[in-house]
């Protein structure tokens, strides 16, 4: 049971890390385009769209990388859990306001509607919860 739990933990960790590492890298390569997609959410003043576009991809990239290499994976999963909760709230506000925009989650030209993105973020949230929850349950405590 413990062995299958460990396998499940590592699979979830690698999948979550790969998704966010990829999402961060794609957006970091074209910051102005991502700023445009952030602006389409109509939540922030002009220049702050650039500030978010310049930094958010690197947060995702760093958290994703930490998960992939299995260093500080629990706090990285917690960070992505919190980020995903924020993304879901933002996407819900987009839908509530009736905006028809591309989510911009995986950079320009991904062509994902807010509803599709909401479903995907719900899955990623579940994945982040799984990594966070399974970390202490199935991994041996660090030897000090």
């Amino acid at each position, binding site marked *: 049971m413990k062995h299958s739990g460990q396998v499940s933990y590592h699979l979830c960790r690698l999948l979550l890390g790969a998704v966010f590492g990829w999402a961060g890298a794609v957006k970091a390569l074209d910051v102005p385009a991502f700023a445009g997609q952030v602006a389409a959410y109509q939540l922030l003043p002009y220049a702050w769209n650039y500030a978010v576009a*310049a930094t958010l991809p690197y947060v995702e990239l760093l958290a994703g990388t930490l998960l992939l290499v299995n260093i500080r994976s629990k706090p990285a999963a917690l960070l992505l859990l919190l980020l995903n909760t924020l993304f879901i709230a933002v996407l819900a506000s987009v839908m509530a306001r009736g905006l028809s925009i591309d989510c911009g989650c995986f950079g320009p030209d991904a062509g994902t509607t807010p509803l599709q993105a909401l479903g995907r973020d719900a899955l990623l949230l579940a994945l982040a919860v799984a990594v966070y929850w399974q970390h202490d349950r199935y991994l041996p405590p660090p030897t000090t």
Partner: protein
Amino acid sequence: MKPLQLTLIEAVLIALLGLLAGLVVNHRLVLDAFAGRLAASGPVAATASAILPQPVLLAEVRDLAAAGALPVDARDGALYADGHLPAAVSLPLAEADALMERFRQQVAAERTLILYCNGYGCPDSFDLGLRLISEGYRDVRVFEGGFPEWRDAGLPVVKGNQ
């Protein structure tokens, strides 16, 4: 300290490290965005010594338009018809060659022009600005926020063709 608190602190530290990395890599872009210098900060501006289109922010666009500046829409005709700034003329970058002669006949070279397109990441207004400067226009401004920022600010939008 409880394990959750520790994990939360570490998560915040990871976020801060990511933020810092993003700011280090993109500091110039972010500083330019807050200073309203974006349109002139690209690689074209870094190498060109000629007159360049000057970036303007939303508030300046309103003042300039009220003072008689001419908004010029660099997007394609369908987007223009869907909604544009009041008194804007359509001059899509893709059709600039065909339409430039008529534009020059209608608009004096001394007129202040405010170019815009789809805002963030859209280079058409800046490129059209360079073209208009080469055609003899000397006061060419680029509204980087473009039509989306104007519309989202709740300012009047006109539909239909010119």
